[in-house]
């Protein structure tokens, strides 16, 4: 019997599965907020052989266009990616959430030198931190502008911020 030819699957956006949705919900809960995006907007970009899925919030009008194509490259607001059941937030989500700093979310705030170090993907020490919180959160500069995602840690009794994803990525990535 002749083997059936496998259909080639292209990268494409599909609705988020409930388990995937819960992973993001958990992450947001830890931050002290919730995802305000309508659940129907949330979509996963599934790429063959990739070990992760990119997650986007795709507005309704844009979502209507998806059916015209078998393959999609990107769309809407990029939230981050899910890999091995964990959500890794992206930079556009940091920008969106930075508006809620000091209201819903406890953000980390850096001074000018701290901003510079952070955008070079370097850890920032206590002397350059204006506001500090433990764990993963949004990092902003002294004007409240988003710089990315960082993790507030205590090392040898000193507070520090480790960059997880900073805006400098746009340059390092070369695009």
């Amino acid at each position, binding site marked *: 019997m002749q083997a059936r030819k496998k259909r080639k699957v292209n990268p494409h956006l599909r609705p988020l599965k409930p388990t995937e949705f819960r992973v993001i919900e958990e992450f947001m809960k830890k931050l002290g907020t919730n995802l305000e995006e309508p659940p129907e907007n949330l979509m996963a970009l599934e790429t063959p052989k990739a070990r992760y899925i990119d997650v986007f919030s795709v507005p309704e009008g*844009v979502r209507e266009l998806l059916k015209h194509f078998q393959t999609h*490259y990107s769309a809407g607001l990029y939230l981050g990616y899910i890999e091995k059941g964990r959500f890794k937030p992206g*930079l556009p989500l940091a920008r969106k959430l930075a508006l809620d700093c000091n209201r819903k979310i406890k953000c980390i705030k850096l001074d000018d030198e701290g901003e510079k170090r952070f955008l070079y993907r370097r850890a920032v020490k206590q002397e350059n931190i204006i506001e500090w919180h433990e764990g993963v959160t949004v990092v902003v500069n002294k004007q409240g502008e988003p710089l990315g995602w960082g993790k507030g840690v205590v090392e040898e009794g000193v507070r520090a911020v480790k960059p997880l994803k900073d*805006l400098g990525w746009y340059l390092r*990535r070369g695009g």
Partner: protein
Amino acid sequence: MNLDSIVFADYKYTREVLELSEKFGYEPSIVYRYVEVLGLEGAWRLLEANENPLPETIRCNDYLIDCGVLKARLEGKGFRLRGIPLAPHGFEVLEQPLPIGATHEYLMGYYYVQDPGSMVVVYVLDPKPGEFIIDMAAAPGGKATQVLQLTRDKARILAVDVSSRRLKALRSHMQRMGFTSYLAVKMDARLLPETLKADRVLLDAPSSGEGIIRKDPGRKLKGKLEDLKRIHELQVSLLEKAYNLVEEGGVIVYAACSTAVEEGEYVIHKLLESKSDIRVESPRMEGLSPGVAAYRGVEFNWGVAGCSRLWPHIHGTEGFFICKLVKSGK
């Protein structure tokens, strides 16, 4: 009558063309075209203007920041900026203490490094909130991000490109600059489904790049006639596709970063001659030069003169051809 045999007939170079080509280091066919359109004196002025490198220019993203505030912030860091008359959001970078593409403000999405002619194309398109817009050769995203900037992220844009590498840059710029109302797809725009009907279609066509010699002097030695014919044919097929994708009453903006008539007026001429329900609309912008009405003895459809041009020696920009077309559907 097949005009290709006239427009693409072999060039017979005069002594002046050969001398100018040698003096400025050009492939003679480019200089031949300059002289054909501008006369000897105009060609000389264009060749001289092309010797001045194109200054770096940026487009302020007023979706995220007030342009006055951005100017003050960059000047506080030692940059010197000057407004661009043709581009309301544009600044020419006169002095830069560090590369303009490496500031914190750039990373925050407050501007895009973009040549002025490219900015003008989107002002001519004049997108409105709520519209559905197709950008047929969208990457790396300069014009697509500008469309969303002008519509406050309220138009829907379908950004199409054949290159994954360039789409990666488009995605990055969309994210950096805070825009979300888009779908990017990797495909040849000629294969787009015609069930899609857009309010506006933007076609910044793949071109010879003859318009950016100020930026890339290596292009002085390209531009052979056979290459130009191949590019022209691709441009014609893409423009026909744009016509099929636009709604009745909708707008197409065709642009090419080139000074060659074969990539500009002659492409538009073919569409106007083959479709009765499309017309050229002059852009509501002052300062642009008109399209070339006749070339190599061929008089184009009268509408072609309503298209626009940017010339390095007149506007101080890159060379650009821009044409706004309206499909009446009647």
